[in-house]
């Protein structure tokens, strides 16, 4: 067995999860210049509602995994609309430059507390929809669900790209991202586009939640660290570049699995944070980012 291939493949699966969450950060930043710091909690809510539907914790299972996913995506979108309405819109209305930071963090904490009361504080296993015996690829053992994570992540990002390029509403989102004022002149309701981008951002997080849940532990606190690391990925890759999110995610994911193996699992979070500090000092707009242009 080739241990390095093993580590790289596992790191890639983890990295694609980070990339999906980072994509969510990017989508709201593009349209509104704001971020949902409760992204991790959106992921957790996706995983926990998914578990409630496919697992036994709420007297289920009610749906199999594949039918559960679209339901979770709908719930995730609605949760994003709530975040936009309660935490972001009021801050933007009063032109508060940083108000949304506190309000999205606060709302995230509230979501986590609610989840702790509904589902308890303990981590629980999430039933895997795919076989749990590893398959052999390039001399490494990899879980089918790890491959599922990579495929699912690429599929979601591909669909989003297609939506942006090919559909009228996608074009309106892109236009709002590049120039909100001019988009308004086209007749695009840019406030609605911002709300939509929040729905999309929470949808991607919820999707990441049900993707990663079968290969990790599921619980009310699972989102905090993932959300923070994906934020690091969004900064590393650049808040404006989808490609950057993927590259940043892969770098961080692989750095973590290899550090965990060659040094100590106790240090596995360190390389990502060091990378973050280096990037902030050396390329503040991220590896792939463009400087955000100030427009009125």
């Amino acid at each position: 067995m080739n241990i390095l291939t093993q580590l790289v493949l596992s790191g890639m699966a983890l990295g694609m999860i980070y990339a999906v969450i980072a994509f969510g950060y990017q989508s709201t930043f593009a349209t509104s210049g704001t971020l949902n710091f409760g992204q991790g909690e959106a992921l957790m809510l996706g995983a926990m509602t998914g578990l409630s539907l496919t697992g036994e914790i709420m007297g289920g299972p009610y749906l199999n995994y594949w039918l559960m996913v679209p339901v979770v995506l709908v719930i995730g979108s609605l949760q994003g609309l709530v975040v936009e309405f309660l935490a972001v819109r009021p801050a933007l209305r009063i032109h508060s430059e940083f108000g949304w930071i506190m309000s999205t963090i606060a709302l995230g904490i509230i979501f986590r507390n609610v989840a702790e009361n509904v589902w308890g504080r303990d981590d629980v296993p999430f039933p895997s929809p795919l076989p749990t015996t590893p398959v052999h690829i390039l001399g490494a053992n990899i879980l089918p669900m790890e491959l599922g994570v990579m495929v699912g992540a690429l599929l979601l990002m591909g669909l989003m790209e297609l939506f942006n390029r090919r559909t009228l509403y996608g074009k309106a989102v892109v236009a709002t991202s590049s120039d909100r004022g001019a988009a308004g002149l086209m007749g695009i309701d840019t406030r609605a586009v911002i709300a939509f981008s929040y729905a999309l951002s929470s949808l991607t997080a919820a999707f990441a939640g049900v993707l990663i849940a079968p290969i990790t532990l599921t619980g009310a606190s699972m989102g905090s660290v993932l959300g923070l690391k994906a934020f690091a990925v969004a900064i590393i890759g650049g808040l404006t570049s989808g490609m950057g999110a993927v590259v940043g995610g892969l770098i961080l994911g692989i750095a973590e699995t290899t550090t965990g193996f060659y040094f100590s699992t106790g240090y596995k979070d360190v390389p990502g944070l060091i990378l973050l500090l280096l990037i902030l000092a050396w390329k503040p707009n991220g590896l792939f980012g463009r400087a955000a242009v100030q427009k009125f």
Partner: protein
Amino acid sequence: MLEIEGLEAGYGPVRVLHGISLKVPKGRVVTLIGANGAGKSTTLRAVSGMIQPTAGQVRLAGKNITGLPAHRVAQAGLAHSPEGRRIFPNQSVRDNLILGAYTRLTFGHSRPRGDISGDFERALDLFPRLRERQYQLAGTLSGGEQQMLAMARALMLNPDVLLLDEPSLGLAPVLVEEVFHIIRRLKSEGITMLLVEQFAHAALAVADYGFVMENGRIVLEGSATELQRDEQVKSAYLGH
């Protein structure tokens, strides 16, 4: 068609417009001239909803559109080709034009659909350079081409009134001429326009009526021929 009365607006605490009143009758071209910083662009922004007026009224075809958000003003039939072009650089020329027709394409048809593909062809006939560059990213166009795109995009709304903010700004003389040639053509097609220009000479030559702005106020108005003859206007804006 467009009536502005006692319009006041500004940026944050700074008031820029101190009661602007002007009218643009249907089928006419009216120009708004004035020195840099007089408040011409601010007037257009307050009309199209890019900024919110603090007082006054704006009516479009008799309908009160004062203070509506920009997308509602566009739905009401007013197109604004803003200062600095503001095209969408990461999207193709074609997508920019499609976005110009957004209100006519969306579900619910906030504006009547009409003949969108016909209008698209007409826009490309009017600006042949854009036809060749249809699939290119708008950000790769030259300054002149970007200006043509901004105008074509505004026309895709099939507007009742078209606001043009300095369409000749920063263009080479030959392109300035082309822009004015196109404005003349639009006029002959009966399009109602409010034209903001630094080239007062050329603007008055194409317009029916003009307003002169200074420090956020209208200081003079008259038919284009009157203004062309006016001594004050001549010395201040026509460089005679």
